[in-house]
């Protein structure tokens, strides 16, 4: 699989102004739907799933959420991303009774988890890196953000030689 097929600048939305997880989910799911990447049932399915199984991940720095749902609602693998102007309160995946402030949302539309497992594990590992999260949040453009993601999701994990001089 080709990560460039999944990470697309036109599915990145920076500095969005939302108040609830439902608003972000609806917005991102709508973008995936209008691009025919997911079926029309995807949006209600993600919203419904999020009620029982919320998806915020506590990172210790910029917290993220990864709303997703059953693969049967997906046409073509994609990720829609939003960075939020103001953090919004989102329930934790591992402790649904706890809310944390989330500033970046990665809506996952994946087909076969086994094919995407390496990609998914690299993506979630990236959430444990505060410097990369900050770079993504502060990226100047959609293209910049896509490039940072691609640099971290493609290739071998030991290639960490660029952008190291902050």
């Amino acid at each position, binding site marked *: 699989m080709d990560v460039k097929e999944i990470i697309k600048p036109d599915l990145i939305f920076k500095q969005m102004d939302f108040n609830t997880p439902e608003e972000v989910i609806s917005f991102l799911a709508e973008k995936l739907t209008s691009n025919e990447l997911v079926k029309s049932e995807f949006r209600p399915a993600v919203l419904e799933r999020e009620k*029982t199984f919320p998806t915020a991940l506590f990172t210790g720095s910029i917290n993220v959420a990864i709303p997703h749902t059953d693969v049967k609602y997906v046409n073509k693998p994609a990720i829609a991303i939003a960075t939020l102007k103001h953090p919004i309160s989102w329930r934790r995946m591992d402790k649904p009774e706890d809310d944390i402030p989330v500033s970046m949302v990665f809506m996952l539309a994946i087909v076969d988890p086994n094919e995407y497992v390496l990609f*998914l594990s690299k993506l979630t590992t990236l959430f444990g890196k505060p410097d990369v999260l900050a770079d993504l949040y502060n990226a100047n453009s959609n293209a910049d953000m896509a490039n940072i993601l691609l640099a971290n999701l493609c290739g071998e994990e030991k290639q960490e030689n660029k952008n190291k001089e902050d």
Partner: protein
Amino acid sequence: MATDNKTLRILAVCADGAATSTVVAVRLREYFGNKGVKVEVVQGRVVDAKRSVESGKFDLVVSTAGSNLGITNVPVLNGIPLLTGIGKDQFFAEVEKVLKK
């Protein structure tokens, strides 16, 4: 490890039994593979976890969707550290501890 030659059986669960549990399963196979411990990781959904544990002989359950699964006879650990890498060493220390019992 106090597991002798038997194969460890781990149930990895997430909300849909597809996305995050796949990552958890890979991480667990990697970890035990590197230690030369035989392991069988079965994936599932949290809603089925209790029933799976009753019918299958599992040594451990790892969940990314909360640890309150109503399971009392098998240890249940939070698998989020295997996704983000945050607290991974602590997670595996806990795994070693519960498997020694």
